[in-house]
């Protein structure tokens, strides 16, 4: 992406070097960015962790995609004249037809599967009648634009309408009365199918009266496959993300190295407001208790869990859990109501904010260890050297000085569970936003 910017916008001939597993991604991105003839060269994956000798072998060796010498390709990329057809391939007008060509149910199911329009589980075919029924549960017009979404920061945004969201909601098996919740998720414009190599998933927390209206689960098994609304709202969020952002296909528009099972329904559940001793999540974020909302988190990967909050060593236990999280993904506490009340008993945390403050003050790590994490090197260290706080201050710490792992505003608490026991967990993720469901009724 930056190579195309330097080349096109600043007029400096540029060659971009990528690792070979990104061949299809690079070809696709340059094409849809209007520079299909952009000059790029591939070296073997990985670069990370290789010695100087090994990297020199990459430089002296061949491009694993073309089989030609890497440096020869680089030099040619900077000097080979443009041949006049550098814009070839960018004049086509892409458009999406409203209907799929009619066929038998069996063939259509196969078509949706082959086109990567599903999550590889059976779907409900989005007939006109089913989509119309879904649309009848919102006051918004079918052609109203809901938002724009893309799989990574380096890809183009795609646009989608209320009807397009309805099509995906039908496919997921959602009941029509769930539709305002699904529209709110689409309006978040946060993709549940991010293409990061880190295999992230999304998480959805539903608050307010809508939880009762559509029969969501916030009690026993809330994050498990035991509730139709939780299951299909989460599934719809995943399907609409992949289809409305222009795809989620491994090697092309999805590069999660290991993948993530959380993606099947994006960890979708309701907060147990009735049994929580604290303020609901959406009220913490400026909404009224009577408002219905969805709160979206992305970057969900790491999870730690334990049972109870022990009297003698609870502080050490929780610190151990926090230290075990990846330093780049801030902790969100998912507490069964039993665990929530134990935190009040043990630590006097009579508000979520007090528990969050304690976690912020106690998630500590020696500075040298913190800065050496690869994700911190990739995403935080450059910002620190650019002068951004609070990281630039952390950078001044001595190697063995304990520094805070997370930012206060990135730590969250949600209450969920049926009180069958005091188990609880911490999930590493990034809160994105809370969206009104009521506005999509």
């Amino acid at each position: 992406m930056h190579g195309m910017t330097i080349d096109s916008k600043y007029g400096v001939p540029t060659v971009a070097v990528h690792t070979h597993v990104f061949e299809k991604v690079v070809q696709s991105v340059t094409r849809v960015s209007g520079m299909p003839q952009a000059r790029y060269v591939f070296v073997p994956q990985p670069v990370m962790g290789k010695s100087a000798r090994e990297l020199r072998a990459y430089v002296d060796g061949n491009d694993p995609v073309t089989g030609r010498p890497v440096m020869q390709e680089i030099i040619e990329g900077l000097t080979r004249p443009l041949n006049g057809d550098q814009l070839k391939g960018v004049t086509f007008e892409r458009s999406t037809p409203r209907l799929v060509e009619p066929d038998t149910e069996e063939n259509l199911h196969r078509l949706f599967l082959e086109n990567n329009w599903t999550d590889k589980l059976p779907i409900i075919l989005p007939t006109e009648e089913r989509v119309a029924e879904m649309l009848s549960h919102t006051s918004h017009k079918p052609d109203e634009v809901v938002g724009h979404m893309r799989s990574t920061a380096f890809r183009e945004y795609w646009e989608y309408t209320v009807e397009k969201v309805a099509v995906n909601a039908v496919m997921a098996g959602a009941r029509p009365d769930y539709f305002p919740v699904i529209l709110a998720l689409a309006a978040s414009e946060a993709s549940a199918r991010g293409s990061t190599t880190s295999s992230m998933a999304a998480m959805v927390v539903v608050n307010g009266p809508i939880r009762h209206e559509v029969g969501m689960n916030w009690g026993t098994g809330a994050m498990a496959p035991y509730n139709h609304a939780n299951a299909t709202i989460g599934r719809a969020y995943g399907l609409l993300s992949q289809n409305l952002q222009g795809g989620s296909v491994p090697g092309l528009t999805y590069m999660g190295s290991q993948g993530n099972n959380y993606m099947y329904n994006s960890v979708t559940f309701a907060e147990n407001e009735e049994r929580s001793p604290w303020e609901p999540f959406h009220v913490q974020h400026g909404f009224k208790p009577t408002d219905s909302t969805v709160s979206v988190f992305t970057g969900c990967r790491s999870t730690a869990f334990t049972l109870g909050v022990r009297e003698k060593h609870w502080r050490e236990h929780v610190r151990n859990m926090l230290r075990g999280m990846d330093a780049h993904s801030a902790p969100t506490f998912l507490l069964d109501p039993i665990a929530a009340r134990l935190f009040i008993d043990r630590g006097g945390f009579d508000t979520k904010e007090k528990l969050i403050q304690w976690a912020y003050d106690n998630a500590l790590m020696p500075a040298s260890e913190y800065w050496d994490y690869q994700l911190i090197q990739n995403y935080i260290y450059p910002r620190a050297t650019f002068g951004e706080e609070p990281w630039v201050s952390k950078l001044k710490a001595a190697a063995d000085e304990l520094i805070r792992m997370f930012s206060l505003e990135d730590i969250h608490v949600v209450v969920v569970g049926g009180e069958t026991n005091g188990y609880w967990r911490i999930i590493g993720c990034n809160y994105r936003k809370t969206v009104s469901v009521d506005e999509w009724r």
Partner: protein
Amino acid sequence: MSSEEQVIRASDVSESKKVIVLNPVGYPPKVTPKPMAPRLDTLDGKTVYLVDPRFDDSDLFLKQVRAWFAEQMPSVKTKLVQMSSVYTKDDPKTWEEIKANGDAAIIGVGH
């Protein structure tokens, strides 16, 4: 998954068994062609910026590229620069420097 890559087909079955369904895919933007910079006649005597996006040890790779130029094409002047911040952000300050002081650029290793 661009629309031209998707399979749109009709089977040879009777019309009565056919079902009409909606397409679940969103609307892509129109592709806008972008011009490319004219290429150089030669790299001899030119300044080539090696741009480190600060991702996954890319600086170590570029140091080897710089060493290659020093050994194999010593007439080429190389300058290794880091992007100002994280690679996900645009960096017009660095791009302006390259435009003002450089003749060509090599950026990597990115995704």
